[in-house]
């Protein structure tokens, strides 16, 4: 591989990483996958669980879609993607149920929720159906991590304000050895119910988006940069 192609190779992957984590983040920029985000972000551990499961599904569905991208005809591509995603999610659920039973008991309820995440079909359509397997898998990983990032921020916010702890119940996911992870941010905290209930999710997300927009505007005023291309603007 010559130096020239090697640098474009790295540039491409760097661009994919940047897109997934920040510029074209599923939540920040595309506003996709809000339903699972709002439903499960009431504690950091729940958020982490959904994040990991979604990332796994994104990688696998992106890879399978990329693999068949030259066989499928455009007029039937969407139903085919739906079949693939549904099969992948069900397979992962069954495998987890059988061999990772402990983890399944924690994440089990989130797995079917992943099907409601339209970020997955959006990535299949916008990226994986046009790119190689390697790049699609990497895009799945980065989009998944970007989604997990927002989940974690919102989860941490709601957990601290709502019950005054962080990483509560870490032992359910990581085993009893990780009990020390749980941090009591405020001792003797009465709790603030609103933050844990659904309205807290909407208000919290609004604050996060406003902060990001404020920061982006500030940066744009300093030096006008090329805005990230938002390829998908579907809402769900």
């Amino acid at each position: 591989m010559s130096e020239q192609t090697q640098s474009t190779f790295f540039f491409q992957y760097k661009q994919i990483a940047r897109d997934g984590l920040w510029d074209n983040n599923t939540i920040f920029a595309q506003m996709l996958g809000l339903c699972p985000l709002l439903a499960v972000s009431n504690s950091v551990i729940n958020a982490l669980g959904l994040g990991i499961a979604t990332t796994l599904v994104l990688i696998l569905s992106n890879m399978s879609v990329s693999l068949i991208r030259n066989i499928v005809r455009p007029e039937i591509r969407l139903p085919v993607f739906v079949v693939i995603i549904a099969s992948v999610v069900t397979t992962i659920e069954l495998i987890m149920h059988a061999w990772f039973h402990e983890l399944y008991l924690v994440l089990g309820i989130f797995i079917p929720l992943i099907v409601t995440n339209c970020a997955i079909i959006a990535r299949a359509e916008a990226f994986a159906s046009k790119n190689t397997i390697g790049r699609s898998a990497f895009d799945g990983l980065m989009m998944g991590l970007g989604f997990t990032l927002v989940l974690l921020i919102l989860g941490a916010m709601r957990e601290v304000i709502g019950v005054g702890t962080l990483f509560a119940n870490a032992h359910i996911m990581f085993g009893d050895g990780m009990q020390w992870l749980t941090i009591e941010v405020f001792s003797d905290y009465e709790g603030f119910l609103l933050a844990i209930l659904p309205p807290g999710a909407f208000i919290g997300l609004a604050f996060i988006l406003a902060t990001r927009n404020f920061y982006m505007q500030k940066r744009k005023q300093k030096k006008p940069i090329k805005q990230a291309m938002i390829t998908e603007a579907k809402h769900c």
Partner: protein
Amino acid sequence: MKTSLIRNMLISATLLATFGGLGTAMVMTTYEMTKDQIEASEKAVLLRNLNTIIPPESYTNKLLEKTLLVPEASQLGNKGETTIYQAWQGKTPVAVAFAITTNEGYSGEIKLLIAIKANGHVSGVRVISHKETPGLGDKIDIAKNDWILGFNNKQLVKSKTSQWKVKKDGGIFDQFTGATITPRAVVNAVYKALDYFNHNHEKLFLDQEKYQQLYGPSSPLKASMSEKP
């Protein structure tokens, strides 16, 4: 022109059907591969849960094999039959355990596993699944709070049934700050289960055969099954 349209339609339909078939085959294969493992894992989890409420050193039989099916009863809250797990120390009955479901919770069903000693005292209660508000109602779960241990060794005495309420309703059980409905539902479910036990005490340690001889088949379905050799 027309034939090419039909041709295209046929190709598309075949492709779509192929992918549908592939997806179904994938799920089917995984299901077949994981079926036994899932059953084994669930049994292991059930046994582990049962062992937390009936100490494993207190009984000598195989808990998951010594079972009795009893017909639907309003106190148990279960649709259809309920499986009673019997714990025996040799020939002495130690305790029974069974799963009960209540839908008096704040959101959705709460599934409880309750074990009652032969003398009518509670051996232990555990929440198996629930959808209560995280951080509030979910304190009924042993992983989050040890509230549920408050039932241990309690019994239902006829003159003191009014005790079986949360403190807010004049009983002896704690409620949680910001969540009264959830603990109220659990207390009530355990109360009803104890009531059921007290009324059916002599039946619950019987063999399935003996039970059916004395009280008839637990359900038509069960009757037809027992006719098989």
